[in-house]
């Protein structure tokens, strides 16, 4: 048995998009154990409920994360609507689904670019983010902002999309699909990329279930769990089956996310074909009184919102459980027995969004 040493990894590291610290217990280039520490970007957003009423909290909650910001605002609004028994009109549900799925495409393209940068392929990183710029242009034309949208409110949506804008989205999606098909050949079939991703960080289906991992990280090991099966919003009318893989290594996680991009494009096309006419918001009367759990499939996995109100304009308690927080034990498990050179890719394979984790 050789000597063990502890190597600190992060918070500053070229591969990490956001700061997380790992203490790696290393013996002769193999990692024995990893101990995470978080807390570098804790802003205390949940404590702002004492200062802002439940309508203004939508704007605070949206700014929890820059990548999954739309889904955060949507989940919060749906939670308050469930407490107050507000019936959101059909058109608003379809609009939220369309924006949500585009948010998922944007998040996966961002992750693919970071993964390419993680194994040193910078040109692929730039080409992928060039496709992502098209998605951001769609967002700016339909919602007004590139990253933070501010189109959700309790009761529905603030902005509508007329048929011209929906046709524009369809045209741009054709172009995006064509470009992602070109890019995916390099991500999935190139020899040097495969040699870095295949066979590292394998988790079996039982391990993933016991460690309560969520999202594409869990689906890549064969666990068929997706909150879009619950049938909220427009998903009850759309045909949807979650994409899974059976390998459980980093290559499978990359493959699941690439195929989810194509699935999201098909879902958006189906939703635009079926969108009903009508109002986009419902009138809101009174103050919320009650508590609720709301679960939604964000791009990284399942997010849970617990909201407790008691008849005042201010929410009593808001607790957000984000998907990266649930995947951290899975990350520590994949790191056992890994090579020191693979740590960057393994950390990226859970799609870390640390600003969501720490709020």
């Amino acid at each position, binding site marked *: 048995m050789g000597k063990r040493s502890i190597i600190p990894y992060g918070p500053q590291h070229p591969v990490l998009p956001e700061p997380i610290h790992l203490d790696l217990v290393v013996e002769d280039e193999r990692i024995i154990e990893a101990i995470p520490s978080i807390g570098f970007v804790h802003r205390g957003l949940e404590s702002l409920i004492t200062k802002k009423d439940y309508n203004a909290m939508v*704007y605070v909650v949206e700014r929890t994360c820059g990548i999954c910001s739309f889904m955060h605002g949507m989940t919060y609004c749906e939670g308050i609507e469930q407490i107050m028994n507000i019936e959101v009109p059909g058109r608003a549900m379809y609009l939220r689904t369309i924006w949500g799925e585009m948010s998922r495409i944007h998040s996966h393209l961002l992750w693919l670019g970071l993964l390419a940068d993680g194994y040193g392929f910078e040109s692929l990183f730039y080409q992928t983010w060039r496709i992502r710029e098209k998605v951001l242009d769609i967002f700016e034309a339909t919602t007004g902002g590139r990253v933070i949208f501010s189109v959700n409110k309790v009761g529905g949506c603030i902005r509508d999309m007329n048929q011209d804008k929906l046709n524009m989205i369809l045209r741009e999606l054709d172009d995006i699909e064509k470009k992602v098909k070109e890019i995916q050949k390099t991500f999935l079939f190139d020899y040097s990329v495969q040699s870095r991703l295949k066979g590292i960080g394998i988790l079996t289906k039982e391990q993933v279930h016991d460690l309560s991992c969520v999202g594409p990280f869990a689906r890549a090991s064969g666990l068929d769990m997706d909150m879009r099966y619950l049938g909220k919003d427009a998903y009850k009318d759309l045909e949807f089956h979650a994409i899974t893989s059976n390998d459980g290594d980093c290559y499978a996680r990359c493959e699941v996310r690439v195929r989810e991009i194509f699935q999201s494009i098909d879902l958006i096309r189906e939703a635009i074909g079926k969108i009903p006419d009508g109002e986009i918001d419902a009138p809101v009367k009174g103050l919320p009184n009650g508590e609720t759990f709301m679960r939604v499939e964000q791009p990284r996995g399942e997010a849970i919102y617990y909201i407790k109100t008691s008849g005042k304009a201010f929410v009593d308690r808001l607790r957000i459980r984000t998907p990266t927080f649930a995947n951290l034990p899975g990350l520590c498990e994949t790191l056992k027995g890994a090579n020191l050179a693979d740590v960057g890719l393994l950390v990226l394979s859970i799609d870390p969004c640390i600003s969501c984790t720490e709020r």
Partner: protein
Amino acid sequence: MSSIMKFAPIALKNFFSKPVTVKYPAEPIIYPEGSRGHVVIDSEQCISCGMCQRVCPTGAITVDREAKTWTINRFDCLVCAYCVLKCPKKCLEIKEGYQAPGKTKYSETCTKEPEEKIEPEEKKEEN
């Protein structure tokens, strides 16, 4: 099905085409319609109720009821459009184009004059 140099066609095509980036500020940026850039007020309609000041998430708006002025600190404004939603007289709206940078965080004041036309006056405050 793995082979080498899968990226080569994309790289070669990129090598012979012109850059994608917009050479700002030499080329102007074209903002799409509806893009959220900055808040403007129609001072004639404003009744100085102070609703926008109450609902602003960052506290960027200040309303003086006696002097009938409306001050906005553009550096604090998030352009979330919540004030536009809540204004009872609908005198606020969002226009394209971001605010100009500056060396100190200045505020902009719009005064409502009873008879004359309104001119926005800039009031620089020390940081």
